[in-house]
Protein backbone atom coordinates (compact mmCIF):
# COMPACT_ATOMS: atom_id res chain seq x y z
CA UNK A 1 0.00 0.00 0.00
CA UNK A 2 2.74 2.40 0.97
CA UNK A 3 4.52 1.50 -2.27
CA UNK A 4 1.46 2.39 -4.36
CA UNK A 5 0.98 5.71 -2.61
CA UNK A 6 4.61 6.63 -3.18
CA UNK A 7 4.32 5.72 -6.85
CA UNK A 8 1.21 7.85 -7.30
CA UNK A 9 2.76 10.73 -5.41
CA UNK A 10 5.95 10.74 -7.48
CA UNK A 11 4.09 10.54 -10.80
CA UNK A 12 1.64 13.27 -9.85
CA UNK A 13 4.40 15.51 -8.58
CA UNK A 14 6.50 15.03 -11.73
CA UNK A 15 3.56 15.76 -14.03
CA UNK A 16 2.52 18.83 -12.02
CA UNK A 17 6.03 20.20 -12.03
CA UNK A 18 6.43 19.65 -15.77
CA UNK A 19 3.01 21.14 -16.52
CA UNK A 20 3.82 24.18 -14.42
CA UNK A 21 7.17 24.60 -16.15
CA UNK A 22 5.65 24.27 -19.63
CA UNK A 23 2.85 26.70 -18.83
CA UNK A 24 5.51 29.18 -17.77
CA UNK A 25 7.54 28.77 -20.99
CA UNK A 26 4.37 28.94 -23.05
CA UNK A 27 3.19 32.16 -21.39
CA UNK A 28 6.52 33.83 -22.19
CA UNK A 29 6.62 32.67 -25.81
CA UNK A 30 2.90 32.99 -26.63
CA UNK A 31 2.97 36.64 -27.59
CA UNK A 32 6.07 36.22 -29.73
CA UNK A 33 4.58 33.24 -31.58
CA UNK A 34 1.37 35.16 -32.32
CA UNK A 35 3.37 38.15 -33.54
CA UNK A 36 5.40 35.85 -35.80
CA UNK A 37 2.21 34.41 -37.27
CA UNK A 38 0.74 37.85 -37.87
CA UNK A 39 3.94 39.19 -39.43
CA UNK A 40 4.10 36.12 -41.64
CA UNK A 41 0.56 36.71 -42.94
CA UNK A 42 1.16 40.41 -43.59
CA UNK A 43 4.50 39.76 -45.31
CA UNK A 44 2.92 37.11 -47.48
CA UNK A 45 0.09 39.44 -48.51
CA UNK A 46 2.55 42.20 -49.43
CA UNK A 47 4.63 39.73 -51.43
CA UNK A 48 1.68 38.34 -53.38
CA UNK A 49 -0.10 41.63 -53.95
CA UNK A 50 2.65 44.29 -53.81
CA UNK A 51 0.32 47.18 -54.64
CA UNK A 52 -1.53 46.66 -51.37
CA UNK A 53 -1.43 49.74 -49.15
CA UNK A 54 -4.16 48.99 -46.69
CA UNK A 55 -5.49 45.78 -45.24
CA UNK A 56 -8.96 45.63 -43.76
CA UNK A 57 -9.88 42.67 -41.63
CA UNK A 58 -13.43 41.38 -41.79
CA UNK A 59 -14.71 38.46 -39.80
CA UNK A 60 -17.13 36.12 -41.39
CA UNK A 61 -18.61 33.35 -39.26
CA UNK A 62 -15.44 33.10 -37.22
CA UNK A 63 -13.20 33.11 -40.30
CA UNK A 64 -10.92 36.01 -41.11
CA UNK A 65 -10.98 37.56 -44.55
CA UNK A 66 -8.60 40.39 -45.44
CA UNK A 67 -9.78 43.04 -47.91
CA UNK A 68 -6.87 44.55 -49.81
CA UNK A 69 -6.87 48.15 -51.03
CA UNK A 70 -4.29 49.97 -53.18
CA UNK A 71 -3.08 53.57 -52.81
CA UNK A 72 -6.25 54.89 -54.56
CA UNK A 73 -8.28 53.03 -51.96
CA UNK A 74 -9.72 50.77 -54.63
CA UNK A 75 -10.43 47.17 -53.73
CA UNK A 76 -7.83 45.00 -55.45
CA UNK A 77 -8.55 41.65 -53.94
CA UNK A 78 -9.08 39.43 -50.96
CA UNK A 79 -6.77 37.37 -48.83
CA UNK A 80 -7.86 34.52 -46.62
CA UNK A 81 -6.52 31.42 -44.99
CA UNK A 82 -7.70 28.18 -46.51
CA UNK A 83 -6.96 24.95 -44.73
CA UNK A 84 -7.47 21.26 -45.19
CA UNK A 85 -5.96 17.83 -45.00
CA UNK A 86 -2.57 17.25 -46.60
CA UNK A 87 -0.56 14.05 -46.82
CA UNK A 88 0.29 14.01 -43.12
CA UNK A 89 -1.60 16.81 -41.42
CA UNK A 90 -3.37 20.10 -41.89
CA UNK A 91 -2.03 22.50 -44.51
CA UNK A 92 -2.78 26.19 -43.91
CA UNK A 93 -2.55 28.31 -47.04
CA UNK A 94 -2.74 32.07 -47.26
CA UNK A 95 -4.54 32.71 -50.51
CA UNK A 96 -4.73 36.01 -52.35
CA UNK A 97 -7.33 36.39 -55.07
CA UNK A 98 -8.31 39.35 -57.24
CA UNK A 99 -11.51 41.32 -56.63
CA UNK A 100 -13.44 39.50 -59.37
CA UNK A 101 -12.65 36.18 -57.64
CA UNK A 102 -11.56 34.72 -60.98
CA UNK A 103 -7.79 35.10 -60.98
CA UNK A 104 -5.53 33.83 -58.21
CA UNK A 105 -2.75 36.25 -57.27
CA UNK A 106 -0.86 33.48 -55.58
CA UNK A 107 -0.57 31.68 -52.27
CA UNK A 108 1.85 31.02 -49.49
CA UNK A 109 1.93 27.99 -47.22
CA UNK A 110 1.64 29.24 -43.65
CA UNK A 111 1.74 25.91 -41.90
CA UNK A 112 2.25 22.36 -43.09
CA UNK A 113 3.74 19.09 -41.95
CA UNK A 114 4.39 17.52 -45.34
CA UNK A 115 7.36 15.16 -45.81
CA UNK A 116 10.59 17.22 -45.96
CA UNK A 117 12.19 16.94 -49.40
CA UNK A 118 9.00 15.66 -51.01
CA UNK A 119 5.59 17.03 -50.09
CA UNK A 120 7.28 19.98 -48.40
CA UNK A 121 8.32 21.13 -51.86
CA UNK A 122 4.82 22.63 -52.19
CA UNK A 123 6.41 25.62 -50.41
CA UNK A 124 9.10 26.05 -53.09
CA UNK A 125 8.93 28.71 -55.78
CA UNK A 126 8.88 26.35 -58.75
CA UNK A 127 5.56 24.99 -57.53
CA UNK A 128 4.08 28.19 -56.04
CA UNK A 129 4.86 30.37 -59.06
CA UNK A 130 2.56 28.27 -61.20
CA UNK A 131 -0.33 29.69 -59.21
CA UNK A 132 0.44 33.32 -59.91
CA UNK A 133 -2.27 34.83 -62.12
CA UNK A 134 -3.87 31.40 -62.47
CA UNK A 135 -7.48 31.23 -63.65
CA UNK A 136 -9.59 29.70 -60.91
CA UNK A 137 -12.97 29.47 -62.61
CA UNK A 138 -14.56 27.03 -62.74
CA UNK A 139 -11.77 25.54 -60.61
CA UNK A 140 -8.07 24.69 -60.48
CA UNK A 141 -7.07 21.39 -62.06
CA UNK A 142 -3.78 19.53 -61.58
CA UNK A 143 -2.02 17.46 -64.19
CA UNK A 144 1.01 15.19 -64.29
CA UNK A 145 1.71 16.13 -67.90
CA UNK A 146 2.60 19.48 -69.42
CA UNK A 147 0.20 22.31 -68.59
CA UNK A 148 -2.28 23.04 -71.39
CA UNK A 149 -5.19 25.01 -69.93
CA UNK A 150 -5.21 28.37 -68.17
CA UNK A 151 -6.49 26.80 -64.97
CA UNK A 152 -4.01 23.93 -64.87
CA UNK A 153 -0.90 23.38 -62.75
CA UNK A 154 1.66 20.62 -62.84
CA UNK A 155 1.87 18.37 -59.78
CA UNK A 156 5.26 17.75 -58.10
CA UNK A 157 6.88 14.47 -59.10
CA UNK A 158 6.73 12.06 -56.18
CA UNK A 159 4.38 14.32 -54.24
CA UNK A 160 1.09 14.07 -56.10
CA UNK A 161 -0.87 13.72 -52.85
CA UNK A 162 0.45 17.00 -51.46
CA UNK A 163 0.00 18.80 -54.79
CA UNK A 164 -3.55 17.51 -55.05
CA UNK A 165 -4.22 18.57 -51.45
CA UNK A 166 -3.11 22.15 -52.20
CA UNK A 167 -5.37 22.31 -55.26
CA UNK A 168 -8.34 20.91 -53.34
CA UNK A 169 -7.83 23.25 -50.39
CA UNK A 170 -7.63 26.26 -52.70
CA UNK A 171 -10.72 25.22 -54.66
CA UNK A 172 -12.75 24.67 -51.50
CA UNK A 173 -11.51 27.90 -49.92
CA UNK A 174 -12.35 29.97 -52.99
CA UNK A 175 -15.77 28.35 -53.24
CA UNK A 176 -16.55 29.23 -49.62
CA UNK A 177 -15.37 32.81 -50.14
CA UNK A 178 -17.53 33.17 -53.26
CA UNK A 179 -20.63 31.94 -51.43
CA UNK A 180 -20.00 34.27 -48.53
CA UNK A 181 -19.43 37.36 -50.61
CA UNK A 182 -22.50 36.63 -52.72
CA UNK A 183 -24.76 36.55 -49.71
Amino acid at each position, binding site marked *: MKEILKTIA*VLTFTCLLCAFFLAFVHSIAKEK*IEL*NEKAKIENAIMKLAPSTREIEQIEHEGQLVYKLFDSQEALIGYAFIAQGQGY*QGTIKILTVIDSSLKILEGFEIIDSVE*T*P*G*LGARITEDTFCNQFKRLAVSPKIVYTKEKVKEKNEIQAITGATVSSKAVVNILNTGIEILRNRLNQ
Partner: protein
Amino acid sequence: MMKDFLKGLWSQHPIFRQLLGMCPTLAVTTSAENGIYMGLAVIFVLVFSSLVVALIKKFIPHQVRIAVYTVIIATFVTIVHIFLKAQYPDVSMALGPYVPLIIVNCIILGRCEAFASKHSVSTTLYDALGMGVGFTWGLFILGSIREFFGSGTVLGVAVLGSAYNPLVVMILPAGAFLVLGFLVAIMNGLERWKI
Protein backbone atom coordinates in the same frame (compact mmCIF):
# COMPACT_ATOMS: atom_id res chain seq x y z
CA MET B 1 35.31 10.70 -18.65
CA MET B 2 36.68 11.05 -22.16
CA LYS B 3 35.86 7.38 -22.77
CA ASP B 4 32.20 8.03 -21.94
CA PHE B 5 32.13 10.83 -24.48
CA LEU B 6 34.02 9.06 -27.26
CA LYS B 7 32.07 5.80 -27.21
CA GLY B 8 29.00 7.61 -28.57
CA LEU B 9 31.01 8.90 -31.49
CA TRP B 10 32.26 5.55 -32.72
CA SER B 11 32.32 2.26 -30.79
CA GLN B 12 28.73 2.56 -29.53
CA HIS B 13 27.45 4.92 -32.18
CA PRO B 14 23.66 5.31 -31.65
CA ILE B 15 22.75 4.91 -35.33
CA PHE B 16 25.40 2.66 -36.88
CA ARG B 17 26.17 0.45 -33.87
CA GLN B 18 23.07 0.40 -31.68
CA LEU B 19 20.63 0.99 -34.54
CA LEU B 20 18.52 3.21 -32.28
CA GLY B 21 16.37 6.17 -33.27
CA MET B 22 15.73 4.71 -36.70
CA CYS B 23 12.47 6.60 -37.16
CA PRO B 24 13.91 10.15 -37.18
CA THR B 25 17.11 8.84 -38.81
CA LEU B 26 15.23 7.56 -41.82
CA ALA B 27 12.62 10.32 -41.92
CA VAL B 28 14.47 13.65 -41.57
CA THR B 29 17.64 12.91 -43.51
CA THR B 30 16.29 14.07 -46.87
CA SER B 31 18.85 16.91 -46.66
CA ALA B 32 22.04 17.58 -44.71
CA GLU B 33 20.57 20.74 -43.21
CA ASN B 34 17.55 18.94 -41.75
CA GLY B 35 19.96 16.39 -40.28
CA ILE B 36 21.94 19.07 -38.46
CA TYR B 37 18.85 20.82 -37.03
CA MET B 38 17.46 17.51 -35.86
CA GLY B 39 20.81 16.56 -34.32
CA LEU B 40 21.07 19.84 -32.40
CA ALA B 41 17.53 19.51 -31.06
CA VAL B 42 18.28 15.94 -29.96
CA ILE B 43 21.54 16.99 -28.24
CA PHE B 44 19.64 19.57 -26.19
CA VAL B 45 16.86 17.18 -25.16
CA LEU B 46 19.24 14.27 -24.55
CA VAL B 47 21.62 16.26 -22.34
CA PHE B 48 18.94 17.89 -20.20
CA SER B 49 16.72 14.80 -19.84
CA SER B 50 19.71 12.66 -18.90
CA LEU B 51 20.92 15.21 -16.37
CA VAL B 52 17.50 15.47 -14.71
CA VAL B 53 17.16 11.67 -14.62
CA ALA B 54 20.65 11.32 -13.13
CA LEU B 55 19.76 13.92 -10.48
CA ILE B 56 16.45 12.44 -9.36
CA LYS B 57 17.13 8.73 -9.96
CA LYS B 58 17.00 7.90 -6.24
CA PHE B 59 13.46 9.23 -5.84
CA ILE B 60 11.81 7.43 -8.74
CA PRO B 61 9.98 4.21 -7.87
CA HIS B 62 11.15 1.38 -10.10
CA GLN B 63 7.69 0.52 -11.54
CA VAL B 64 6.96 3.98 -12.93
CA ARG B 65 10.45 5.00 -14.01
CA ILE B 66 9.67 4.79 -17.74
CA ALA B 67 6.57 6.97 -17.32
CA VAL B 68 8.57 9.55 -15.35
CA TYR B 69 11.38 9.57 -17.95
CA THR B 70 8.86 10.03 -20.74
CA VAL B 71 7.22 13.00 -19.00
CA ILE B 72 10.63 14.60 -18.45
CA ILE B 73 11.65 14.03 -22.08
CA ALA B 74 8.31 15.34 -23.37
CA THR B 75 8.75 18.49 -21.28
CA PHE B 76 12.15 19.30 -22.78
CA VAL B 77 10.98 18.48 -26.30
CA THR B 78 8.00 20.81 -25.91
CA ILE B 79 10.32 23.55 -24.67
CA VAL B 80 12.48 23.14 -27.79
CA HIS B 81 9.33 23.19 -29.93
CA ILE B 82 7.99 26.39 -28.34
CA PHE B 83 11.42 28.03 -28.38
CA LEU B 84 11.91 27.35 -32.10
CA LYS B 85 8.42 28.62 -32.91
CA ALA B 86 9.06 31.85 -31.04
CA GLN B 87 12.69 32.56 -31.98
CA TYR B 88 13.36 30.63 -35.20
CA PRO B 89 10.03 30.21 -37.03
CA ASP B 90 11.85 29.26 -40.25
CA VAL B 91 13.68 26.35 -38.66
CA SER B 92 10.49 25.27 -36.93
CA MET B 93 8.72 25.34 -40.29
CA ALA B 94 11.48 23.27 -41.96
CA LEU B 95 11.47 20.54 -39.34
CA GLY B 96 7.69 20.40 -39.14
CA PRO B 97 6.39 17.48 -37.09
CA TYR B 98 9.79 15.97 -36.38
CA VAL B 99 10.52 18.21 -33.40
CA PRO B 100 7.55 16.98 -31.32
CA LEU B 101 8.41 13.46 -32.49
CA ILE B 102 11.75 13.62 -30.63
CA ILE B 103 9.67 12.54 -27.64
CA VAL B 104 9.52 9.02 -29.04
CA ASN B 105 13.17 8.94 -30.13
CA CYS B 106 14.39 5.79 -28.41
CA ILE B 107 17.99 7.00 -28.10
CA ILE B 108 16.87 9.46 -25.44
CA LEU B 109 14.73 7.03 -23.46
CA GLY B 110 17.42 4.40 -24.03
CA ARG B 111 20.20 6.55 -22.55
CA CYS B 112 18.00 7.58 -19.61
CA GLU B 113 17.18 3.96 -18.81
CA ALA B 114 20.53 2.32 -19.63
CA PHE B 115 22.96 5.01 -18.49
CA ALA B 116 21.62 8.08 -16.69
CA SER B 117 19.63 6.07 -14.13
CA LYS B 118 22.79 4.15 -13.10
CA HIS B 119 25.57 6.72 -13.25
CA SER B 120 26.62 9.99 -11.65
CA VAL B 121 25.59 13.37 -13.02
CA SER B 122 29.00 14.23 -14.49
CA THR B 123 29.51 10.86 -16.22
CA THR B 124 25.97 11.16 -17.59
CA LEU B 125 26.77 14.56 -19.06
CA TYR B 126 29.68 13.12 -21.07
CA ASP B 127 27.65 10.14 -22.19
CA ALA B 128 24.70 12.29 -23.34
CA LEU B 129 26.97 14.73 -25.18
CA GLY B 130 28.82 11.89 -26.91
CA MET B 131 25.64 10.12 -27.97
CA GLY B 132 24.10 13.40 -29.14
CA VAL B 133 27.12 14.43 -31.21
CA GLY B 134 27.39 10.88 -32.59
CA PHE B 135 23.72 10.97 -33.61
CA THR B 136 24.24 14.38 -35.24
CA TRP B 137 27.20 13.32 -37.38
CA GLY B 138 25.34 10.19 -38.38
CA LEU B 139 22.34 12.23 -39.53
CA PHE B 140 24.62 14.69 -41.31
CA ILE B 141 26.41 11.97 -43.31
CA LEU B 142 23.17 10.20 -44.17
CA GLY B 143 21.48 13.49 -45.10
CA SER B 144 24.45 14.64 -47.22
CA ILE B 145 24.57 11.42 -49.24
CA ARG B 146 20.83 11.40 -49.86
CA GLU B 147 20.73 15.10 -50.71
CA PHE B 148 23.72 14.73 -53.07
CA PHE B 149 22.18 11.93 -55.11
CA GLY B 150 18.52 12.84 -54.62
CA SER B 151 18.60 16.59 -55.28
CA GLY B 152 22.13 17.18 -56.65
CA THR B 153 22.87 19.65 -53.83
CA VAL B 154 24.92 19.71 -50.63
CA LEU B 155 23.63 21.92 -47.81
CA GLY B 156 21.31 23.52 -50.36
CA VAL B 157 24.13 24.50 -52.76
CA ALA B 158 23.84 22.99 -56.24
CA VAL B 159 26.98 20.94 -56.94
CA LEU B 160 25.96 18.63 -59.74
CA GLY B 161 24.55 21.22 -62.10
CA SER B 162 21.32 21.17 -64.03
CA ALA B 163 22.50 18.41 -66.39
CA TYR B 164 22.23 15.95 -63.51
CA ASN B 165 18.94 14.10 -63.38
CA PRO B 166 18.27 13.55 -59.64
CA LEU B 167 17.72 10.02 -58.39
CA VAL B 168 14.41 10.80 -56.70
CA VAL B 169 14.42 7.43 -54.93
CA MET B 170 17.24 8.68 -52.71
CA ILE B 171 15.02 11.21 -50.96
CA LEU B 172 12.15 8.76 -50.79
CA PRO B 173 11.97 6.39 -47.78
CA ALA B 174 13.52 3.58 -49.85
CA GLY B 175 16.66 5.69 -50.35
CA ALA B 176 16.96 6.14 -46.59
CA PHE B 177 17.02 2.37 -46.07
CA LEU B 178 19.52 1.86 -48.90
CA VAL B 179 22.01 4.44 -47.66
CA LEU B 180 21.63 3.34 -44.04
CA GLY B 181 22.24 -0.27 -45.09
CA PHE B 182 25.44 0.62 -46.93
CA LEU B 183 26.70 2.79 -44.06
CA VAL B 184 26.07 0.06 -41.46
CA ALA B 185 27.80 -2.44 -43.76
CA ILE B 186 30.83 -0.13 -44.05
CA MET B 187 30.95 0.33 -40.27
CA ASN B 188 30.76 -3.43 -39.75
CA GLY B 189 33.48 -3.96 -42.36
CA LEU B 190 35.77 -1.47 -40.62
CA GLU B 191 35.16 -3.25 -37.33
CA ARG B 192 35.79 -6.74 -38.72
CA TRP B 193 39.03 -5.96 -40.54
CA LYS B 194 40.19 -3.61 -37.76
CA ILE B 195 40.91 -0.69 -40.00
